[in-house]
């Protein structure tokens, strides 16, 4: 015991003693020795010079002993480290294929793992950037019984809970809108507005960058303060971070408002896209539970559990009927009304949690595979170097030195792969694979930071060290004798079995990904070549939203649009211009009509769901939608029974035929009489929301130019053209500034938005599939690469350890091809197991891709066969290399090795 403690003490002392001091002492000691020896030699009768030479000779070169003695003292010096690192570089330089394989495997694996891991962590686990985030909850109101999905509140339920609940210090309600135009200054702008009860910001713990936050009275329309807050982004973008912003009047849809403060960028509630925070009342106009649109969040009182709060709110539901007589207990029961209380953090990311967790697991598996492959490659290398090691040991190299060699090689390779991993991680974190906070909440909070870089370097070093150490234990430095006794055999067998399993697994994963990539590739091809029903080339579109003040009637809007069309039509290169409520494939955010239609003459015939649009006379011509029968719209089509045009699919769905000109179609409306229309034309079908959904049944209402074609009775008009799309076809399309100039000249408050070519709409419609295809294809190629490296290293390792057997076989007259066949057989067995497992897994999983597949079955034989063939060919090539080497084994060399 004491003995050990003493040894430890000496070691510690050595650590603190500077090396030069130690070396100096040693020099003293040695020169003393030589001096004494010289004196002794002189005493024996030598002359001075000979005596000295003899003494030095006997000492055998002071420098060498100095080094050895240092080694024995247990000081690993920086000099040694630098030298060993140089050696490691030199050795790796001599094995470029090995080094490249390791660096690529580990670099890509680690980079992807850290990049995606950082995203998963940042989205799922990092605390929200608000005060005491563990107290913040989202309160949902759920009514499964009446077919309203989601967890939004009605004004009545929010009011009730905010008044009565004791579990919360505050409950706030908010919703967002893109329906606001800011019209101060020269350039009108479409903005994103968060409307909220004034307490919402304070309950989250927001602190203004400049100015103040809302006060409770700010929601009242008569409040002279007319307060709004703006976001830091909007402040910088539109006002150049003007410090005198406080008190500035801003004209927005609902009149002039005063800016009272700026909300910092770091506080990005509810989304980072918000430009303006608008104080809004939640008035209980009609006490219903069906009209819902409020997100409700709350701050729990200290020590209150979300479940306790949920229980309290659920108990308060029956008393809704007491506070609001319009809400009956029967209605509450029938709707199965209940309340959910979930931590705000998990509620924010609930929609993407399963996918992200899956992604995290996948990434961990990839890293595991990459590391295993690297270990296999290392083992293969050390197996080949085992003789060299044995010689080094017998020549007197210490085991520590040999061990050091392995670890340093591992660390050097680890750090080299960090050079690959860093840009991979940075790329993953900066592109975020094309996703935005719109699809994945909180994604904007994630970025590449110094911590990420440090994590990459740390992991690379750690994995490098671990790989070096594992390689070391497997070559049995500690067991030179073990090797003689061949006791490694059993542990080797287990190890090899694990290796084989992992490689088969890699092959399986590669196959699944390749099949998926094949299916998505075909799907993408089909989408690009789908007959979408309109001509996207040489055409563009943009959106205009008319403000409510100034455009109160159908005619006001119609006149504006007519002027716009006239001015756009005379631009050089423009052939035709049209207006519609919406264009196909315009994506979310554009307004759309959902109609319930019935044949006008067929009482009791089923109602058919249809999409609706409103189109000017030239719309079909400009879009390139063919007119199959009848005519397009003309002036006066809104008089009497208004005219409509139907798509072929709608005609078939409602009447069972496309011969429908002159027939009547009825639109059922909630809470009023059905409205009847006369069909004047039939047009070709278009893909409406998404290409994947195929053709949609469409009903077109006339969008008239105004003037004497309009009826005087407003109730006879189906909707008003307030938020519309212009479509322009021409050999030369107008530039964005030209369009902005033309709109501004008519009304300086209106910003044209979503200025795009029709082609870009089609691109965007296929973007989801393209992105997924790209990701899966990259993953597939990476998995294929990993699989190839895995198969190669395992087969080569196995072949290497059988080299003596091959030698004997060859010496006894076996044909080289037979020996090669043995190795090939080993490899094929692995690949076969992997492919069988992979095919089974692919059959089980490709159906999850169904939503992304277009006109290709998830079990398409061509894709399964193609992927399998590719995998077989590639892995066969990986097996051929060691097989050929085995066939060329020289018997004498193999046997001499032992």
């Amino acid at each position, binding site marked *: 015991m*004491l*003995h*050990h*403690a*003493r*040894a430890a*003490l*000496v*070691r510690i002392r050595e650590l603190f003693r500077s090396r030069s001091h130690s070396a100096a*002492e040693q020099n*003293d*000691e*040695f020169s*003393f*020795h030589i*001096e*004494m*020896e010289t004196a*002794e030699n002189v005493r024996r009768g030598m002359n001075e010079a000979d005596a000295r030479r003899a003494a030095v000779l*006997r*000492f*055998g070169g002071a420098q*060498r*002993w100095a080094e*050895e*003695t240092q*080694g*024995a*003292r*247990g000081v690993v010096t920086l000099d040694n480290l630098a030298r060993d690192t140089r050696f490691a570089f030199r050795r790796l330089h001599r094995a470029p294929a090995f080094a490249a394989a390791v660096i690529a495997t580990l670099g890509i694996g680690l980079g992807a793992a850290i990049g995606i891991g950082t995203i998963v962590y940042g989205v799922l686990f990092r605390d929200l950037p608000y005060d005491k985030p563990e107290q913040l909850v989202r309160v949902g109101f759920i009514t499964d019984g009446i077919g309203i999905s989601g967890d939004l509140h009605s004004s009545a339920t929010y009011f009730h809970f905010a008044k009565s609940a004791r579990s919360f210090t505050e409950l706030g309600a908010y919703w967002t809108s893109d329906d606001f135009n800011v019209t101060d200054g020269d350039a009108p702008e479409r903005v994103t507005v968060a409307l909220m009860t004034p307490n919402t910001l304070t309950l989250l713990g927001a602190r203004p960058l400049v100015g103040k936050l809302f006060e409770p009275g700010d929601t009242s329309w008569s409040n002279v303060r007319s307060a709004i807050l703006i976001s830091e982004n909007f402040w910088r973008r539109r006002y150049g971070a003007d410090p005198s912003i406080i008190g500035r009047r801003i004209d927005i849809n609902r009149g002039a408002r005063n800016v009272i403060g700026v909300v910092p960028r770091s506080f990005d509630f509810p989304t980072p896209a918000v430009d303006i925070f608008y104080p809004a009342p939640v008035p209980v106009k009609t006490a219903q539970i069906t009209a819902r649109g409020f997100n409700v969040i709350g701050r729990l009182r200290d020590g209150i559990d979300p479940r306790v709060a949920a229980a309290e709110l659920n108990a308060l539901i029956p008393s809704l009927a007491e506070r609001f007589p319009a809400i009956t207990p029967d209605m509450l029961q029938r709707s199965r009304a209940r309340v959910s209380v979930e931590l705000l953090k998990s509620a924010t990311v609930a929609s993407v949690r399963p996918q992200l967790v899956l992604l995290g697991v996948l990434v961990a598996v990839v890293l595991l595979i990459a590391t295993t492959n690297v270990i296999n490659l290392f083992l293969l290398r050390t197996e080949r170097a085992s003789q060299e090691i044995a010689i080094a040991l017998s020549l007197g190299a210490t085991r520590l030195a040999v061990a050091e060699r392995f670890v340093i090689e591992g660390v050097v390779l680890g750090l080299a792969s960090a050079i690959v991993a860093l840009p991979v991680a940075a790329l993953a974190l900066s592109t975020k694979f094309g996703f935005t906070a719109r699809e994945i909440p909180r994604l904007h909070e994630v970025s590449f930071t110094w911590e990420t870089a440090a994590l990459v370097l740390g992991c690379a070093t750690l994995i490098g060290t671990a790989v070096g150490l594992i390689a070391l234990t497997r070559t049995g430095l500690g067991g030179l004798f073990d090797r003689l006794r061949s006791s490694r055999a059993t542990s080797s067998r287990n190890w090899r079995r694990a290796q084989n399993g992992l490689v088969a697994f890699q092959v399986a994963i590669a196959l699944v990904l390749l099949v998926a990539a094949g299916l998505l590739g075909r799907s993408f091809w089909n989408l690009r070549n789908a007959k979408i029903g309109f001509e996207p080339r040489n055409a563009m579109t943009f959106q205009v939203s008319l403000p409510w003040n100034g455009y109160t009637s159908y005619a006001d809007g119609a006149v504006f649009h007519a002027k716009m069309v006239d001015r756009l039509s005379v631009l050089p290169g423009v052939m035709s211009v049209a207006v519609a409520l919406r264009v196909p494939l315009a994506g979310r955010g554009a307004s759309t009509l959902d109609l319930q239609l019935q044949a006008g003459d067929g009482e009791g015939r089923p109602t058919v769901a249809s999409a609706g649009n409103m189109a000017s006379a030239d719309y079909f011509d400009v879009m390139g939608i063919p007119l199959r029968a009848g005519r397009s719209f003309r002036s006066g089509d809104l008089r009497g029974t208004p005219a409509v045009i139907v798509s072929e699919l709608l005609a078939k769905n409602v009447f069972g035929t496309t011969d429908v000109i002159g027939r009547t179609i009825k639109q059922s409306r909630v809470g009023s009489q059905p409205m009847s229309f006369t069909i004047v034309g039939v047009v070709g079908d278009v893909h409406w929301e998404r290409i994947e959904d195929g053709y949609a049944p469409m009903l077109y209402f006339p969008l008239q130019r105004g003037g004497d074609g309009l009826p005087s009775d407003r109730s006879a008009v189906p909707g008003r053209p307030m938020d519309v799309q212009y479509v322009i076809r021409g050999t030369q399309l107008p530039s964005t500034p030209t369009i902005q100039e033309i709109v501004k000249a008519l009304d300086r408050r209106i910003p044209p938005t979503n200025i795009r070519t029709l082609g870009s709409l089609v691109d965007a419609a296929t973007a989801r599939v393209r992105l997924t295809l790209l990701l899966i294809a990259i993953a597939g190629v990476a998995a294929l690469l990993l699989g190839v490296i895995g198969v190669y290293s395992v087969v080569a390792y196995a072949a290497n350890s059988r080299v003596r057997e091959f030698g004997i076989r060859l010496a006894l007259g076996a044909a080289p091809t037979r020996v090669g066949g043995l190795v090939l057989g080993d490899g094929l067995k692995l690949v076969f197991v992997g492919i069988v497992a992979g095919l089974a897994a692919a059959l089980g999983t490709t159906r999850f891709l169904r939503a992304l597949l277009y006109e290709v079955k998830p079990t398409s034989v061509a894709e399964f066969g193609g992927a399998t063939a590719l995998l077989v060919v590639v892995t066969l090539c990986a097996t051929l290399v060691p097989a050929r080497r085995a066939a060329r084994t020289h018997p004498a060399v193999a046997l001499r090795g032992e």
Partner: protein
Amino acid sequence: MTIRQQTDALRGSLDLLILKTLSLVPMHGWGITLRIQQMSEGILDVNLGSLYPALQRLEKNGLIASDWGTTDNNRRARYYRLTAAGRRALGQELDSWKRFTTGLDAVLRST
């Protein structure tokens, strides 16, 4: 150690010799070589390449300790001395060495 007639049997006995030498009186490295030479009547000649690493190893293991001192003719030298652990180790090593040589003797005599 031992240049003349080096055999495997003697390898490793250097530690024992050092401990034995130091058990009498603290001594510097050169003194140790001289003493071993004298005591073995010139048969054993310590290889210096083994001596100093052995001294360091023994010190690291806590069997001996070292201090700087001055010699009779006023030269600075590092003196090594036996620690309590070293003294115990010496006892054990001597025992096993004796058993080893007895065994060796018996075998050699019987043939």
